[in-house]
Structures are given as structure tokens and as C-alpha cells.
């Protein structure tokens, strides 16, 4: 009891001593609380209600979750698509971020700057959906169709954006195209920050080629950046299907490119069934947290 009391008093004293610090963190954390913490936390209780934004939310217990998993076939399709997106674009984009950042870093100075810009340019250009629509347009004016037909690979125009067989493929290509974002830049910065003497020490110890240098010197020095990039790539891989809202018709033909995100959007922003939408969001958050935990378990072993 005495010790606890002491600890409490010590904490209070520490708080009083650093009172100015709370002023420094307050602006950020107040906004963070309102626009990140609360939205995540209320998704579960809201998921237990029916809410149409006009009337007060009505408690319906587990019924939203019951419908989601047992009655809503589109949702099951959405889960499947989300996992396909995550499993394909997540690891692949992470690999691309690292390999490209490393290759760029091997080149002399001015070329580094040039190539960093080239590979980051899609993120800067952002959502140039109209150009992608032109490339994958379903008629013969579409760039992809025109060249495939001219080269004799296909006979007729392929409906890239409306044929259920192609939608996922197209969305994955576009997602990978703009996948070199914050994770890529973080790895680039990390590579540039590795002190030169580590490489010199490595050379003395008998490193002969780039591959050995990469494995024994570069990767061990990059733990924090590699972990950060992994988290960034998971996040974007789970929201991958979101670009479908702008690129293809919404919802996609036969729900071929429908994901948990777009399902939540459908109910939240179009049908105003906010309770149901919140339940979908909660499932998405849970799946993302689980994936994040898994990645940290796997990568943490190698990076610490």
C-alpha cells in the first residue's frame, strides 16, 4: 500500500514536472483521438445497432454480424477478394519497395535522385483513373486492346473493366503501379543512412559481392525501416480494392472486385445503413490488426 502510494505520488510529481510536455502533445492527440481512436472504437458498439443517420441508433444485438456471416453472400465474396488482394499485392509490393530501393541505392548520386523520382511518381500523380480507364477501355480505342489486337494476340476487344474474369487482374496491376509510397521512401532513406564504415568493415571481413553485402551488412542495419514499410504495405494491400470504386463501375460486375472496404462504402455512403456498415468496418479493423500482429511476429524474429 505504502509503495503504491509512493509510486502514485511519484507519477504525479513527474506529471507536474513535465506539465509543459502535455501542451506539446495535446494538439496532435486531441485530433488523433477524435478522428482515429474514436472511429475505430465506436465501430463495435455501432455494429450492434440499426442507424440511418436520421433517427437515434436502435440496439439490435448481434443481428448485423449474424446477417454478415450467415446471410450476406456478397460479404463472403468481399472477404475472399480482400484476402486475395492482400496476399497478392501485400508481399509483392513490399518486395518491390525493398528491391527497387536497394537497386537505386547502388547507383551513383544523380541517378539515385532521378530513379527515386521515377518510381515515386505514380504516388505523386495519384489517382489518374481517367488515364487507366483509357488504357483498359473496353473498345478498340483502349490502348491495351488496340495493341493486343494489332499484334494478333487477341481477336476482339476485351472488356477489361466490366468482364468479371479480368477485373481483379486489372485492379491488382493498378494497385501495384501505385504501391511504391511511404514504405519505399522510408527504405530509400534508411539505405542512405547506413554509415559507410559498416561497409568498410564488411569488406575487411571478406565480403565479395553485392548479394553478400546486402545480406550481411545492409539488411541487418535496416530493421526499423523494413518494419515500417511492412506495416505501410499491409495497410494499402487491405484497401487495394478501393480504387475499383473509381476505375470500374460500382459495384463491379458480379461483385468480382468487391472488397470489405467497398462493401462498407456501399452500406455506409450509399444506403445509409450505418449500423451494418460499422459492423463491416469492425470486421475489417479486426482482420487488419490480426495481419499486423502476424507480420510483426514473423518479421520481428528476423529484425531484432
Amino acid at each position, binding site marked *: 500500500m505504502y509503495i503504491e502510494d509512493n509510486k502514485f505520488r511519484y507519477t504525479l510529481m*513527474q506529471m507536474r514536472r513535465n506539465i509543459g510536455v502535455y501542451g506539446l502533445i495535446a494538439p496532435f492527440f486531441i485530433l488523433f483521438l477524435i478522428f482515429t481512436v474514436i472511429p475505430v472504437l465506436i465501430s463495435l458498439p455501432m455494429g450492434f445497432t440499426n442507424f440511418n443517420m436520421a433517427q437515434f441508433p436502435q440496439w439490435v444485438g448481434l443481428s448485423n454480424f449474424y446477417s454478415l456471416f450467415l446471410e450476406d453472400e456478397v460479404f463472403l465474396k468481399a472477404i475472399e477478394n480482400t484476402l486475395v488482394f492482400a496476399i497478392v499485392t501485400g508481399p509483392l509490393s513490399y518486395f518491390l519497395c525493398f528491391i527497387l530501393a536497394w537497386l537505386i541505392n547502388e547507383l551513383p548520386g544523380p541517378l539515385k535522385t532521378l530513379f527515386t523520382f521515377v518510381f515515386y511518381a505514380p504516388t505523386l500523380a495519384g489517382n489518374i483513373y481517367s488515364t487507366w480507364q483509357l488504357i483498359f477501355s473496353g473498345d478498340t480505342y483502349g*490502348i491495351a486492346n488496340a495493341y493486343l489486337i494489332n499484334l494478333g494476340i487477341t481477336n476482339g476487344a476485351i472488356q477489361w473493366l466490366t468482364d468479371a474474369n479480368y477485373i481483379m487482374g486489372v485492379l491488382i496491376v493498378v494497385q501495384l503501379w501505385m504501391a511504391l509510397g511511404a514504405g519505399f521512401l522510408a527504405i530509400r532513406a534508411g539505405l542512405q543512412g547506413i554509415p559507410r564504415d559498416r561497409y568498410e568493415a564488411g569488406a575487411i571481413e571478406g565480403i565479395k559481392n553485392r548479394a553478400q553485402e546486402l545480406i550481411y551488412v545492409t539488411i541487418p542495419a535496416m530493421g526499423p525501416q523494413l518494419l515500417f514499410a511492412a506495416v505501410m504495405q499491409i495497410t494499402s494491400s487491405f484497401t487495394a480494392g478501393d480504387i475499383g470504386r473509381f476505375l470500374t463501375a460500382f459495384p463491379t460486375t458480379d461483385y468480382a472486385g468487391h472488397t470489405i472496404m467497398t462493401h462498407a462504402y456501399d452500406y455506409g455512403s450509399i444506403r445509409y445503413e450505418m449500423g451494418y456498415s460499422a459492423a463491416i468496418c469492425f470486421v475489417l479493423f479486426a482482420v487488419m490488426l490480426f495481419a499486423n500482429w502476424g507480420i510483426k511476429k514473423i518479421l520481428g524474429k528476423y529484425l531484432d
Partner: protein
Amino acid sequence: MRIKKSRKKYGGSLGGDIAIFVLLTLLGLFMLFPIYLSVIQSIKPPEELFLFPPKLYAMAPTNQNFVDLMNTASNMWVPFSRYIFNSVFVAVVVTVTQLIFASSAAYALSKVNFPGKKALNKIIEVALLFTSTVLFIMQYMVMATIGIIDTYLAITLPYIATPMGLFLMRQFMGQIPDAMIEAAHLDGAGHARICWQIVMPNVKPAWLTLMIFAFNGAWQITGYSFIYNEALKPIPTVLQQITASGIARAGVAAAAVVILMIPPMLIFVLCQSSVVETMAQSGLKD
């Protein structure tokens, strides 16, 4: 033993460099293709837009699409300058406040010991997952409750306190030696002064990088679902309206795409060169 200084690291050879250069050039062309295509489309006259097979260059380049864009824009419900103002206003407010808020919080979380610090650090690391793309439906509910839908607040406030910004600054500030901070303390400087006058000048690459992220993110805010008042909408919504009007406006849409991608690229190029410069000065560059 003295080690001979050379321009390159130790594992490389010229042949390898050339192979890497060729590989990156090929991949780079793929990355640039859609951007190149946007530019080409924007300078094609209407009759060239619908040739078969489509040409990957413009035979008679013209600025007609840009002129048409300005004309279309001036016939809208509110003057085009209003959309430009909205976009610039949102981008500047979000970038500047994010830089200030994230930096001061990052200083506290990396360099000061106070009760609650550990928990906040943990929360930020988990929160990296929850970007505005994932959160926007739940954010809509919060914003509707506090009544800021359809105001400037709806397209600025949610984008300021990004966990990524704080995380980035915190990682860089962690590398500043504690002795530097203690020395400033002994000189009687308070936390705010240490953060802005001692720490910030030493992490220039970090906040330039954050500026790139923040501006780029803010420039792409559409206000979709959050803003209904035409006078408050940023440029990307205009682009969506033009694109939605179909194939007849294809050239004009391409012109809008090109204009929209210039500012983030400019900011990136400006900041990127100073990032490299700063790293060279601090002796971090290899």
C-alpha cells in the same frame, strides 16, 4: 590499417552498375507510361484522340484542351479560381499544421520522459494501420455527430493528426543525442524552445519528407461524401465531374489530370534535392 577511399561501396562493379541501370530504366518506363500517356492525351487535338490504333504521341500538339478546360471551368457554378483556392487552402493548412503538431508530439514522445509516454508510443505504432482510406466511413459518423460535415473543417481536421507523420518524426528525433538536449536544459531552455530551436534544425530531412507526404495526401483530398457545397469543393471533384461527362471531354479530362499532378511533383523535386543535400552535409550519405 588505412582503407582507401573510393567513390563506390565495396561490393560493386561497373558491369553490375550497368545491368542495374538497364533494369531500372525498363521498369521505370512502365511506371512512367500512364503519366506520359496523360500528358500526350492532354496535348492531342480532338481528331487524334479517336484514331485506330491509338498513337502514343501527338502528331499536331495543341494547347486547345487546356483552353477548353479553362472555358469549361469558367462556366461552372462557382468560378474555377474558387476550386483552386479551396485546394491550395486545404493543402497548405493540412501540411503546415501536420508538420507543427506531429513534430512537437514526436519531440515529447522521443526525448522527454513523462508518465503515459510508453502507452502513447504503443498506440501510435498500432494506429499506423488506420489511414483515412480505411476510416472514412466511421469518420463520417463522428463528423456528422459533431456537425462539421459540409464545412472546411471536414476536409482539413481529419487529415492533420496522422500516425505516420508522428511516427516518422519520432524515428528521426530518436537519433539526436540526449546530451544535446540536456545541455539546452541546463541553459534554461523549455521544451517548446528545445524542440523548435535545437531539435528541428537537426532533423531537416525528416520534416522535408513529412512535407512531401502531407502535401501529397492533402492535395488528393476530394471531400467526397464530406462536402456538398460547390463553393467548398477542391479541384479533384471538378476533375471527377469532367471525367463523368464522358468520352467527349476526354482531352479536357487529360488536361485537368496533368494540371493536378504538377504541384505534388514540384514539391517532391524541391524537397528531394534538399533531403539529399542535408544528408550529404551531415555526413550520412555514402
